């Protein structure tokens, strides 16, 4: 009787390790196909349009309000120490180092990641992936590799847009509404932000782009053959991607700082 929970725990642990192994093999397989011809630049552009361009609206909206609320909170905190002039650097550093990469990645997960899982999952259920196989076209090369490349390119670009819009959102509230001087807002950014902050943000966003496309494509590719299975796969993809983004962000930040 005592061994039953242990057996269950052991079984669960083994299945988690197996799943992780399968995920790693899926990623390695995709990378292998990435460098083999035929190359499909049009497919990459199509995915870039889907992941990047179509996510712009939600990213810009999130960035503007994040920058605005950051300026609002930052202004009242800094005013207690008479340092309102540092508002620009506070907003910019928060945006470039943390909020830009993390929030943009979470938005891409919610908008494009879930759609990727659903699309690939439906293709699996309706045998479209098997059809590719029968035509001697590797589905990982045709379907997954362009999405991964688009994620690696698209997410950093979205993060760059997020950072710029967020800083301008902060400017709008800090300078136009709360009366911080425009000169001190920009000059504090210029003096506080270093290349390594920007570089760290880019590095994070590239790794998040890989993480989102990897997890979401994997979950769709190996979805169970039912509508319920597809729903579960989509939920798991979004939850796992979001959690991994936050966990990976912590580890990357601790290395970069």
């Amino acid at each position: 009787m005592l061994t039953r929970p242990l057996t269950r725990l052991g079984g669960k642990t083994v299945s988690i390790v197996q799943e992780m192994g399968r995920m790693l093999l899926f990623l390695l397989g995709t990378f292998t196909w990435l460098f083999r011809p035929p190359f499909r630049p049009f497919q990459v552009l199509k995915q870039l349009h889907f992941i990047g361009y179509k996510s712009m609206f939600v990213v810009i909206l999130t960035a503007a309000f994040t920058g605005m609320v950051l300026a609002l909170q930052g202004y009242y905190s800094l005013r207690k120490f008479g340092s309102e002039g540092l508002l620009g650097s506070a907003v910019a550093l928060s945006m470039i180092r943390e909020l830009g990469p993390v929030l943009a990645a979470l938005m891409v997960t919610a908008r494009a990641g879930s759609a990727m899982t659903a699309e690939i999952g439906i293709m699996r259920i309706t045998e479209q992936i098997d059809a590719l196989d029968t035509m001697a076209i590797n589905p990982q090369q045709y379907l997954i590799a362009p999405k991964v490349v688009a994620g690696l390119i698209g997410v950093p670009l979205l993060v760059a847009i997020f950072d710029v819009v967020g800083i301008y959102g902060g400017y709008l509230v800090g300078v136009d509404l709360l009366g911080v001087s425009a000169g001190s807002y920009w000059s504090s950014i210029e003096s506080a932000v270093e290349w390594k902050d920007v570089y760290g943000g880019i590095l994070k966003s590239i790794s998040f782009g890989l993480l989102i496309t990897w997890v979401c494509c994997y979950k769709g590719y190996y979805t169970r053959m039912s509508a319920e299975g597809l729903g579960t796969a989509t939920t798991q993809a979004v939850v796992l991607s979001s959690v991994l983004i936050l966990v990976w962000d912590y580890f990357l930040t601790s290395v970069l700082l």
Partner: protein
Amino acid sequence: MIKLVGVEKRLGGQQVLNGIDLTIPEGKLTTIIGRSGGGKSVLLKHIIGLLQPDRGEVWVDGVDISHLKSNALNEVRKRFSMLFQSAALFDSLTVFENVAFPLREKLRLPNEEVTRRVEEKLEQVGLSGMGHKFPAELSGGMKKRTGLARALIMEPEIILFDEPTTGLDPLMAKTIHDLIIAMQRRFRFTAVMVSHEIPEIFSISDWVAMLKDGKIAVMAPTAEFQQTTDPDVREFITVGGTVPLLVNR
């Protein structure tokens, strides 16, 4: 020639294939019949390497494909096409693009040549002028015909048909059967079809095999198959064949 030797497969804790020994004659239409859920589609997927057997071998012209790596398997698959039960059309592409897909991906032909070949195939399956439609706008029969055109476009040596008439009305089923047999007689490809359509399949098949309990119970030329004394096969084909008589009464 396609040859399966002692193929076994277990799926979801159930023994689906239990020692399949089967030789598919070249240039002929062989139909595999059997009960629903009996493993006919699983067998078909083994022939094209979509599934690997737990035990046994699958030989395609002297090559055992059961343990081939991805690249080598793709080389063998270039000789195949498959018409899926659901047609498996790419829903984001039009009928024309679906049929053109293998040409564009595998042969990289100029656009004029692709257009010529696709329109020719669409005409052969009776879908002229339907190229602009998306799969969601098609009836079941039109989807199957599009799938058939896509399967034929590369002029493969072997075509697998997974229940090509399931879900279609009798007239449309006959149209699809007539198309398959007309194409097979014209291009002389090796055809393997999984079907429940008894007695219709007897008029189009060269060979018939029956799958029972994960094994091939009987395989013979069609006329000989219809005379078999195996009681299970007799029961299966008689029930299928007597339905129209019951309706006529």
